[in-house]
């Protein structure tokens, strides 16, 4: 009873703070460059796949988070209408792949805050060389970022011929190799390991294309040190992760995967090139020694780097792995190529990397393909590429964002 107006206002029951978990995963039926399926079609395939995986009813989805919308993807509202959803929380980022971890993090926070109880984190990647040919204004268009006066997100300077992330990251890799003495053999090891994983992944675009050192070095040089094999794939497809209240997830079909900790994208003058760690000395970065590994995400998860059973890296280019290994403290400054050579990153190593094949050999799913794979691994559903006993997996990028997913919990 209200003391002021003497009216009995309805009062919702007190809520305990919900915990957010990943309760379902899905993908489009295939990843590829010539699927000839519209972004919306791909995205609805991924939704249906995630619903079937989890056993969740479509009508229970009350939130949607997506990274990049039209053109190239699907805008959140377009998707909601097409899928017949009724959501009370929606979020959309802008173009490209950098937002995967942040979008999942934001969805988890929205569930924890009670803004929604089951959020479809759903994303479609489309290529200008694929279905984008049919969509006005998409085919072959340079990204706006590359035209910025202050430099693009990857270090592009369009008027200077550094017009794509590929050329910009070749400068990053070249600089790293000059500074620390890494070689083209070191780059080859990364590409070959990811390809070996893809051979065990039926969804991988490169599943039937084994890579040897000989075939790697036979690949055309695009911009040295990068051969074609050091680039991510140009591909299309969609993914869906269902981020739900743990109490609801417990009633569903699949074992829940916990979102144990997250870190956001870092940005500053020293940290403005997406695929270079700070201190490397490219673009506007100061060229100093690598200060400190970024251990805060491990602290929030209550673990250390040594507890990570598998690492998932945004591998738009092979050199990205070096940045991540140093940034997150898996090795010291300049030692990443040695780590790859000596510790290894394959399925037989202590900490396999990108067991799905990554952007370089599975498909460019903007990072979400890695997150889907992490969930499969933590459920023990990764088949011949299963990491034995996988309990703690980390997503990490050269730009500092990270997610630590753990089994059950």
């Amino acid at each position, binding site marked *: 009873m209200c003391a002021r107006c003497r009216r009995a206002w309805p009062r919702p029951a007190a809520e305990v703070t919900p915990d957010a978990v990943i309760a379902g995963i899905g993908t489009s039926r295939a990843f590829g460059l010539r699927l000839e399926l519209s972004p919306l079609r791909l995205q609805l395939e991924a939704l249906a796949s995630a619903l079937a995986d989890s056993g969740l009813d479509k009508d229970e989805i009350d939130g949607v988070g997506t990274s990049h919308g039209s053109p190239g993807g699907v805008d959140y509202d377009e998707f909601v209408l097409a899928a017949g959803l009724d959501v009370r929380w929606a979020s959309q980022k802008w173009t490209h792949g950098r937002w995967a971890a942040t979008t999942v993090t934001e969805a988890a926070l929205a569930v924890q805050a009670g803004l929604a109880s089951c959020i479809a984190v759903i994303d479609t990647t489309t290529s200008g060389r694929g279905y984008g040919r049919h969509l006005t204004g998409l085919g*072959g268009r340079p990204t706006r970022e590359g035209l910025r006066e202050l430099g693009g997100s990857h270090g592009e300077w369009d008027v200077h011929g550094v017009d794509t992330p590929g050329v910009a990251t*070749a400068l990053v890799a070249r600089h790293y190799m000059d500074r620390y003495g890494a070689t083209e053999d070191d780059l080859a090891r990364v590409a070959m390991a990811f390809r070996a994983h893809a051979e065990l992944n039926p969804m991988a675009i490169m599943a039937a294309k084994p890579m040897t050192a000989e075939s790697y070095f036979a690949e055309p040089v695009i911009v040295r040190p990068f051969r074609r094999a050091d680039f991510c794939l140009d591909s299309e497809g969609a993914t869906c992760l269902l981020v739900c209240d743990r109490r609801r997830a417990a009633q569903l079909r699949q074992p829940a995967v916990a979102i144990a900790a997250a870190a956001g994208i870092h940005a500053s003058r020293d940290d403005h090139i997406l695929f270079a760690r700070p201190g490397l000395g490219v673009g506007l970065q100061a060229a100093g020694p690598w200060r400190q590994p970024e251990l805060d995400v491990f602290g929030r998860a209550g673990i250390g780097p040594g507890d990570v059973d598998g690492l998932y890296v945004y591998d738009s280019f092979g050199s990205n792995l070096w940045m991540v290994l140093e940034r997150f403290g898996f090795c010291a400054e300049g030692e990443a190529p040695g780590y790859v050579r000596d510790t290894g990153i394959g399925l037989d190593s202590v900490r396999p990397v990108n067991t799905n094949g990554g952007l370089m050999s599975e498909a460019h799913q903007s990072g979400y393909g890695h997150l889907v794979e992490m969930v499969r691994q933590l459920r023990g559903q990764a088949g011949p590429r299963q990491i034995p006993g996988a309990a703690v997996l980390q997503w990490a990028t050269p730009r500092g964002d990270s997610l630590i997913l753990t089994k059950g919990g």
Partner: protein
Amino acid sequence: MSLDYLTAAPGPAPVVHPGNAPWWQALAAGELRLPRCTGCGTVRFPPAEACWRCLSFGYELAEVTTTGTVETSVVVKRVTGRSRWQADVPYRTGLIALGGFRLPGRIVCSCGAAGTPGTPVTAGLLATVDGPPVLGFAHACPG
């Protein structure tokens, strides 16, 4: 010191608008100048209307040395982006240490020495297809 035009295939022009016209006009006049903040003295690179350090808008265009050394460079053999670079491949582009800054630009070098960090280069102008010139660099190749 006045910048000379370098011999290389023209690339795309910068987008010039009233806010950024002063430094493009200075470059077109053969002067390598960057905005120096009248608030805190920071020389702004990349050139910008506001100071990233103190957020002042005032600036004067300060002259910058025209000689530097290669920090990193790569040769683009195949275009990966827009087709208007197609006519220019292969070309060398990179980052030049110059006057305390790290400036981007294509590098004209026929002998390949510019592939080695520390190689001295001189700033110059590169013509564009449809607009004012952009900054470039040249190595004094032997012969």
